[in-house]
């Protein structure tokens, strides 16, 4: 019975890595769809969304089964509960990536996007997600904490993009629509950053059993 339990825990672990990989793909596709104006990538980002949702259901089922049948304690319990939270965040990331892909289709040919740091931002959010998944994979506490701190970089980028867009609109009101869309996209990216930071927080929790307060300390300290 314990053997089966271990196998299930492992399946949970790999399931989350797999879901993380899908999310990374989704963000990458969304970014390529926006910046490279590639229609196949945009479509792929939309398709990945359903794959991510299916993954989420699968993982949730494993979690519930484990909780009911094995009644885990201590670190196993933490691992399972944090897995449940992580997949929720990942699912949201998939949604945001799909939203970006949808909006991107209205952005083809617009020159505004090259004037702002949207590419930097997409790269930064992708890095955050990759790092948080890496932290999960390796159980790397330091990396998870670095992701939480890195969220400020993404927030900062969002603020800069926002003011950049305001400047563009006030100079040329014809670009209003594009600017609006880009604001949405950058907000979505910023949300992806937040979700990635959440994932990192859950990784920290599953390793240490400590929650939130750590992050507040870190924020106020740094």
């Amino acid at each position, binding site marked *: 019975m314990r053997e089966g339990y271990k*196998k299930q825990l492992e399946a949970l*672990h*790999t399931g989350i*890595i797999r879901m*993380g990989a899908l999310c*990374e793909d989704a963000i990458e596709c969304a970014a390529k769809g926006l910046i490279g104006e590639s229609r196949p990538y945009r479509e792929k980002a939309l398709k990945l969304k359903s794959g991510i949702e299916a993954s989420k259901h699968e993982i949730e089922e494993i979690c519930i089964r484990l909780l009911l049948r094995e009644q885990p304690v201590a670190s196993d319990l933490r691992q399972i509960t944090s897995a449940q939270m992580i997949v929720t965040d990942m699912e949201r990331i998939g949604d945001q990536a799909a939203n970006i892909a949808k909006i991107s289709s209205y952005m083809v040919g617009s020159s505004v996007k090259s004037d702002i740091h949207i590419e930097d931002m997409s790269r930064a959010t992708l890095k955050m997600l990759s790092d948080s998944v*890496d932290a999960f*994979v*390796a159980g790397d506490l330091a990396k998870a904490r670095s992701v939480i701190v890195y969220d400020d970089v993404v927030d900062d980028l969002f603020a800069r993009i926002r003011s950049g867009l305001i400047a563009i609109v006030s100079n040329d009101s014809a670009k209003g629509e594009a600017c609006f869309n880009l604001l949405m996209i950058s907000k979505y990216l910023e949300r992806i950053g937040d979700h990635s930071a959440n994932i990192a927080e859950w990784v920290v929790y599953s390793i240490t059993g400590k929650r939130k307060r750590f992050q507040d300390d870190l924020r106020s300290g740094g």
Partner: protein
Amino acid sequence: MKKRILFFSCLLAGISIVLTAILIHFVVYRNLSESQRVEVGKDAAYIAAAVELSGEAYLKSLEPLPRELRITLIRPDGSVIFDSEADAARMENHRDRPEIKAALESGVGQGAHFSRTLSKQTFYHAMRLSDGSVLRVASATDSVFLSFLRLIFITLAIVASVFAVAATIGTRVTRLIVEPINRLNLDAPEENAVYDELAPLLSRMKKQNDTIAEQMREIRRKQIEFSAITDNMREGLLVLDRDARVLSCNASATALLRARVNDPIHRNALEWSRSEPFYRAVTSALDGASSEALAESEGKYIQIMANPVVDAGSVQGVVVVLLDVTERENREILRREFTANVSHELKTPLTAISGYAEIISNGVAKIEDVPVFAEKICGEAQRLISLIGDIVMLSKLDEDDGSHPREAIDLKELVEDVAARLAESASKKSVTIALSEEESAENAEITKIRGVRRILDEVVMNILDNAIKYNVEGGSVTVFLENTASHALLSVTDTGIGIPADEQERIFERFYRVDKSRCSAVEGTGLGLSIVKHGVKLHGGEIEVKSTVGAGTTITLKLPR
């Protein structure tokens, strides 16, 4: 072992003490009772003599009686006259007692009585007195058990002390025996000469040691061999078990997959790389189907080949081979670009030719315009021919199989020859061509290099042609030749438009033209410098480009002799 030795030595000591004690006790007891029996006899004789002398009164005067003596006087009919312990009148008739009976018959009777309740052994001695009555003396003593019981505490004390002694000595002895065994050098069992009894064991041990060492050497050798092969492979090798956990990997695999974990063994393959093609290849191999995939990350192309390891009909694991195919992929991309460019370049003049020809054949063109169109058709056809010529040239250069005949070529002659052929186009643009030479040659032979005439001709032709084409009106082209013992230098300097620094790398690419807007103005296939590059490469030479925009360009060829 120590415990066993100790246990047995104590057991032995204990048993021997107990047995000895019992044995001694019995022997002593026997002697004791014998002597007591004799004593009773003696006592009875004395008392009998005394009674004979002074009658019953003597008996009464004896009280208290010494030791545990009991004296009884019995009439010949068996009734008791006197007893030293009980009231004689109440005592029963004693005639049937065996010792009394014997005394009555033969004068002396002996007997023993064992009283269970008192644990006493009583010896009787009866004598018939001269008056016919019988005197019986009884002496009681502890029975064998009681006396033994009395001794038991002493025995136990002795056993305990002997145990203590045995234990101490046992421990010592055990240590003495065991110590050399503990100190055995098991790495070299034969060298130990502790006990003869251990010799067979030790020699067996040595044999096994040798076998193990031999096997270990073999295993290590195989392992070194295996890791030497895998670690020096450029290809990545990854062996996974059926749960996709990594069993073995080589350095290339770690590098190619950019493994994200420090300790990769026994990790799930997904923890290595989350790339989609890798995942697909591994899962399909786990399902029993060999699969190939191409993964691209950060400008690198990795070909992934995953093969299932099938044993007894089920998949036991996966062997993954990873290849860095970046170069191949890049070449493939170049080739695709080249093909697209070629098709485009071929199509353009053909479209023009077909257009002009259509106009003429439709009769739309005025008769006086026909020569104009014919000239244009001719021009486009020429362009097509030179383009195809260039492509053929390039493809020949691509396959350098040593089939090009080499001969001694005088570079100066060659340059003069080419310059003569270009004189017309130069004069059209009023560009002057000058040839100068470093006068270091000691004899004429040294100006000659070994090369392929046709190709060198094409190389010089293209460079000079470019120098004229991209020159300004009234500019000049200077060709400078220098000969050294090891190589020849040929540099062509023009006063043309120049090449921007960031494009100087790319001018040798096929169909690459610096100024796209100029393309239509200046004729050319975009393949010229590509031919130069490959031609020089074929001769093992080098090209150097120095250029300033607006001032001119110097292209220097360094050709080995």
